[in-house]
């Protein structure tokens, strides 16, 4: 299970809404405990594609995040991106470009009246939805 603080959930939603009409993205730092993955830090990154249908992260920004995560003794748990106009599930492109099976892949959909956040484990093209608890 992925555990995310309410304030961090709101931070992700705010970043996604501020990025409209384009997709927004970011990274999650935290730790594992008793089979759960606890998010302690949400990092808001630029979508260098500046697109409503694609996102890419800037490697320099990613490394800066990694450095901060290491300095806190945490680990990179996952990433998130928004789907402004489509549901909260991975597209073919999301699946094809999910190279790290140790990551949680979060997708926030903004297509409805309220945001919908889901997390997925993606490995070798296989997608499995994971439980997310917002506390």
């Amino acid at each position, binding site marked *: 299970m992925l555990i995310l603080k309410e304030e961090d959930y709101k931070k992700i939603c705010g970043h996604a809404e501020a990025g409209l009409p384009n997709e927004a993205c970011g990274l999650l730092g935290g730790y594992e405990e008793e089979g759960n993955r606890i998010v302690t830090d949400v990092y808001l990154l630029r979508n260098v*594609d500046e697109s409503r249908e*694609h*996102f890419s*992260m800037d490697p320099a920004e990613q490394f800066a995040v990694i450095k901060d995560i290491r300095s806190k003794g945490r680990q990179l748990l996952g990433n998130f991106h928004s789907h402004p106009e*489509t549901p909260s599930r991975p597209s073919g492109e*999301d699946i094809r*470009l999910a190279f790290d099976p140790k990551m949680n892949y979060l997708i926030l959909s903004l297509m409805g009246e309220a945001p919908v956040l889901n997390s997925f484990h993606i490995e070798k093209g296989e997608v499995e939805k994971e439980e997310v608890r917002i506390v």
Partner: protein
Amino acid sequence: MQIIVAGNKKEVQDGLKLTELFVQEEVETPEYVTVSINEEFVPSERVKDTVLQEGDNVEFLYFMGGGSNGTDR
């Protein structure tokens, strides 16, 4: 020799090449991985010739991208 990989200390053989570390760390898609050693990017054309040194701090970073294109509405 000892190096640090993704924040973890590891004992590896002297003269280990970066490409050999890819194998040890089970990096299946190295073409989509950016590497930094001691916080310096390793240009892709130098990856195959890079030999690791004692104390090197190596970070692997998978390309992260995707998008909603192709998602059913």
